[in-house]
């Protein structure tokens, strides 16, 4: 046996296990996506068991493509994922750079910053939508209410009253509405995942070479140039990691969407899959395959973009 073969052989079980682990679910999804398979159908009971004789070709895919929610779900998935990525990366970099400098109480601040990450997604959603974003009882409602009260008082005041009576009454935003529920999801997930980005970026900042910075100082680079030409390229790899991991996680957001609006006007692909899966497994599987394709496109596109713009 050559010295190459033995390691290969020893790796085989692990590789096989991984392949089986991935290929079986993917294979079954593919299989279901090409047959008629529903959980409940009184007229055609033969469709309720998966079988090749129910072959439907690309019929499920056509059905999904033509369903009214599909485009919306894709749009929403992209909107939610891209917004969250954008916000968490920017906030993450800013916060990491800020708390990287030594200051008093650093330890406590770091622990506090990380803590949102340990809240369960469903709990996070319930907290945000009820306690913070609720237009009446949440922080938002209370804040808008108090500002309005203050405005009322000012309008009644002599002298400045005339000026403030030009101001409109503020309307709280209802985040459960069709138009805004996606933003609620973006806000709460950003809050939860920014710590993850901060954590990764902070570790990377600690390993930044200080002499390079000193050289840059002598070369006449100001704070911004040092950040732009040294820190940001140094962070390119961790940013790519954060983007990759988050893209995978957030393409499959479910709990937040369910809790905020029950998918009302705010479906993403997983939610759509969930709806189809109530009965039509074939269509759900086809949607799943679309989701896999979308995830790959997003990942490749995002990584390219980061690679290009950050590495000089």
């Amino acid at each position, binding site marked *: 046996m050559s010295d190459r073969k033995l390691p290969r052989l020893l790796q085989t079980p692990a590789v096989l296990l991984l392949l089986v682990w991935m290929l079986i679910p993917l294979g079954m999804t593919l299989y279901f996506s090409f047959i008629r398979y529903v959980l409940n159908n009184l007229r055609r009971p033969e469709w309720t068991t998966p079988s090749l004789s129910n072959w439907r070709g690309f019929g499920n895919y056509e059905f999904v493509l033509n369903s009214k929610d599909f485009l919306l779900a894709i749009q929403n998935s992209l909107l939610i994922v891209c917004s969250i990525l954008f916000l968490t990366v920017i906030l993450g970099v800013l916060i990491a750079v800020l708390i990287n400098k030594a200051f008093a109480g650093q330890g406590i601040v770091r622990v506090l910053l990380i803590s949102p990450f340990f809240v369960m997604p469903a709990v996070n959603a319930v907290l945000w939508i009820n306690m913070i974003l609720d237009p009446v009882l949440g922080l938002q409602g209370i804040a808008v209410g108090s500002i309005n009260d203050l405005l009322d008082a000012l309008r009644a005041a002599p002298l400045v009253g005339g000026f403030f009576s030009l101001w409109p009454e503020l309307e709280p935003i209802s985040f459960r509405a069709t138009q805004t529920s996606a933003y609620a999801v973006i806000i709460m997930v950003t809050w939860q995942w920014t710590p993850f980005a901060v954590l990764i970026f902070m570790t990377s900042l600690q390993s930044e*070479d200080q002499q390079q910075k000193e050289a840059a100082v002598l070369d006449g680079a100001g704070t911004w140039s040092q950040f732009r030409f040294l820190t940001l*390229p140094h962070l390119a790899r961790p940013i790519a990691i954060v983007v990759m991991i988050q893209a995978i996680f957030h393409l499959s957001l479910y709990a937040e969407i369910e809790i905020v609006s029950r998918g009302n006007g705010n479906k993403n692909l997983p939610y759509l899959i969930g709806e189809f899966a109530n009965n039509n497994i074939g269509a759900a599987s086809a949607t799943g395959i679309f989701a896999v394709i979308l995830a790959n496109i997003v990942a490749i596109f995002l990584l390219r973009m980061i690679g290009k713009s950050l590495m000089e």
Partner: protein
Amino acid sequence: MGRIVLKNVTKSFGDTQVIPPLDLTIEDGEFTVFVGPSGCGKSTLLRMIAGLEDLTSGYIEIDGNDATQVPPSERGLAMVFQSYALYPHMSVRKNIGFPLRMAKMDQAEIDQKVETAAQSLNLMDYLDRKPADLSGGQRQRVAIGRAIVREPAAFLFDEPLSNLDAALRVGMRLEIGELHERLKTTMIYVTHDQVEAMTMANKIVVLQAGVIEQVGSPLELYHKPRNKFVAGFIGSPKMNLIEGAEAAKHNAHTIGVRPEHIEVSTTGGQWEGKVGVAEHLGSDTFIHVHGIDGCDPMTVRAAGDVAVKHGDTVFLTPQAQNIHKFDQKGLRIE
């Protein structure tokens, strides 16, 4: 121009004073070398001149202007670090051009200056590589190139060659020497390599624990060390310092004789001892002789082909005109 004057400069880290009050003048165009044992404050002093380290007190003048509060980028000094400190994400071209880009020079001019610098440093073939794909010597040249393009008032080098292998070090030493000949710019060079100090410097500053022990030309330091520390530090192998009766004969507390100023004989001489280790270098032999009063072992530099071996009895005679005398405090007696 690049005349640098330090006046009453001190530096403390917390409660520890690393540099007690220190005065030093570096003339325009001079090649000044700071030497001293590890931890004596050479780097700290250099970083203070560069502006990377604040002064605890005192002030620094560059070309007659008080530069104490001037930010590092405006002092017109370029520094070459021991670790090169190249920017890893930029090509060699961008690395060298970086200070010019920061100075908002236009691209055509930057390109032209970068090419000129690269040509003089033999870096033309590597301009589009990243630092990680260069050898140590090439990286060091890029770091020097980055310093040159700025046309600084003075260059500061902090042990620039200590990460290179011995052969490359000799080559780079010559290149830096030539660079100084060509540019005639002030250079301050930190090293603990004797040979670098002796061969490159116009002026050597010997430091110990933040204190300047002596300032002078290499040969001045070699021939007239101001005290025992400098005597022992400059020259290789180290000067033999002899105390006791032998020294008293010269009305001194300690006398010093360099290994190269001692004659070896197997038949007769002033001091008698036994050979310990003999290090044969080919051109020379360093013999460590034991059993001599006041200095054990005494190192002697003899011809390369001298035939002595461990345990032999040898006689040593110092050259009378090359005996250095030091008093109780270790200061030189003329």
